């Protein structure tokens, strides 16, 4: 079973996934310790973290937000992303019938703990196609160096 970012796996297993999640809520997560800042599966925006030898890359999948209003801060090894998204569905309009309101609205807040070797003063963030991409370079001295054998 994979956990979908969007809580809607398609096909036959969608129902089982939903049942599993509901049971998880009732009986609590499996006894393994989780990261102290980890969130319930399916919290939006979904986050992917990757690394290259020279940087740490964080992708927050947050479509339809105003990038100037997102708060990205790095504080003592912790990256925080906070923002909000307004609903695009017209409310209280008698002439409009709403059939589905699945897209999340309201404020969001995610944190990612960063490894010790990042240079927090050089964070670069960009927003493209609904993905907030945050790139933090890793300090020079910790990058792997090749040692030549005489």
């Amino acid at each position, binding site marked *: 079973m994979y956990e979908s970012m969007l809580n809607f796996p398609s096909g036959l297993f969608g129902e089982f996934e939903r049942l599993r999640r509901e049971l998880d809520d009732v009986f609590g997560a499996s006894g393994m310790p989780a990261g102290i800042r980890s969130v319930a599966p399916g919290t939006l925006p979904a986050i992917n973290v990757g690394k290259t030898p020279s940087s740490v890359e964080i992708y927050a999948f947050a479509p339809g937000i105003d990038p100037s209003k997102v708060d990205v801060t790095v504080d003592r090894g912790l990256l925080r992303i906070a923002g909000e998204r307004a609903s695009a*569905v017209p409310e209280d309009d008698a002439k409009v019938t709403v059939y589905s309101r699945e897209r999340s609205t309201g404020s969001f807040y995610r944190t990612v703990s960063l490894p010790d070797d990042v240079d927090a003063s050089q964070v670069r963030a960009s927003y493209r196609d609904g993905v907030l991409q945050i790139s933090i370079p890793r300090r020079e001295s910790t990058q792997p160096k090749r040692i030549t054998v005489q």
Partner: protein
Amino acid sequence: MSTQRAIQKTQEQETRSVLPRVDVFEDESGITLLADLPGVPRDKLEIKVEGDTLLIDGTVQPQTPEGLEAVYAEVRVPRLRRSFTLSRELDSARVDANLKDGVLTLRIPKQAHAQPRRIAIQAG
């Protein structure tokens, strides 16, 4: 035997997809559909109307630098697909699509004859 299983697994991975979340609402002149498709660039999005079925099919492809190694991934299925059946009073030939910041806005107008019309009552 195991290569056959490996081929089947790759095929399954290629067709695995996730349903994007949508908002759908209708007003007098048509239906508006908003779909969350983060990370899908315009050239990786296909919108097809076949008969009375509307299909949205996008591939998530964020910009990744050279040598990127995944550390933690909540998005693991890079394909967003969802289809809808359009009822006959919708004019599927005049669908208007706009993709901005990962949000697809589709506007499907009603056929001209299906729009509400007030019928004037003749006197006498």
